[in-house]
């Protein structure tokens, strides 16, 4: 890979990592609320 390609590769990697982190954060919040609802309906 040329230095330019390497740079583009790392920029894409970073962009994907940020989006993935956002999605994981969203799933954490979603599962938190699902758990609260499930506990509420079980009790």
């Amino acid at each position, binding site marked *: 890979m040329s230095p330019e390609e390497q740079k583009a*590769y790392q920029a894409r*990697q970073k962009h*994907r990592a940020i989006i993935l982190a956002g999605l994981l954060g969203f799933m954490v919040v979603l599962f938190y609320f699902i758990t*609260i609802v499930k506990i509420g*309906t079980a009790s």
Partner: protein
Amino acid sequence: MTTASQTIQGLASAKDLFALTKPRVMSLVIFTALCGLLAAPGTIHPVIGFTAILAISLGAGASAALNQWYEADIDAVMKRTQGRPLPAGRMDRETALHFGIGLSVFSVLLMGVAVNWFSAIFLAFSIFFYAVVYTIWLKRSTAQNIVIGGAAGAFPPAIGWAAVTGDVTLMPILLFAIIFFWTPPHFWALALFVNSDYSKAGIPMMPVVAGRQSTRTQIFGYSLILAAVAIAPFTLGLAGPVYGGASIVLSTIFCVFSWQVGRSKTTEPEDMAAEKRLFKFSILYLFALFAAVVADRMIFA
């Protein structure tokens, strides 16, 4: 050493991964699934309802990714699909396959854990049906491929219903049947006036295999079945007068437009006013009919 994953193609962009899920198709899936969920008897907590729609959407996105993984060769031949991530060379096939399988597994597990396992199994079956039965098996081998593909697109409202009730009764089966019988007239009307490259790609589409006139006759035939199925929830007492009135008026217009298509003899796409009218109306028809199902349930439940 440079491996496949270390090339720029090996690292697909987030935008291309999103495009792989066919977001426009997904919007229709979300709408019909939501209608199925809202029309079902019983209640569902908003958080669980949201999760169910999310899981169905992710399942639809996974099916679309697997479809594009398998059809990269066809997509490369057709003008309409040449710009997709795989044929355009912006992503390798392995990435699409891994993304599709990963998303499938995740959507089914999410549905099972958060909603119920009946709808999770139902969702898994719908992904299998679209990716394997339709895409891999039947699309390239029969001119009725759109009819079978329609079944894959017809699952979401029934899965949305199952998310609430945990079962499938006559009403969700009728909602399934409405989309199933709506798909051939909708798609064949488009196929008549859009000069697609399906014959170039070796896909046996009805207008290419059976000819325009046979396709037009079949459009009218399917429209009659669609009208009967669409009005059935009202005549069977499963839906109230709001849905009954809407389904009768909408289906009558649909049949009149289909009849006009059936009588058309035009061969020039620019003169196919009847086909274009039916295609445009078919989109409005499905949205209005499903909105009527929900409105009816909201008013009379």
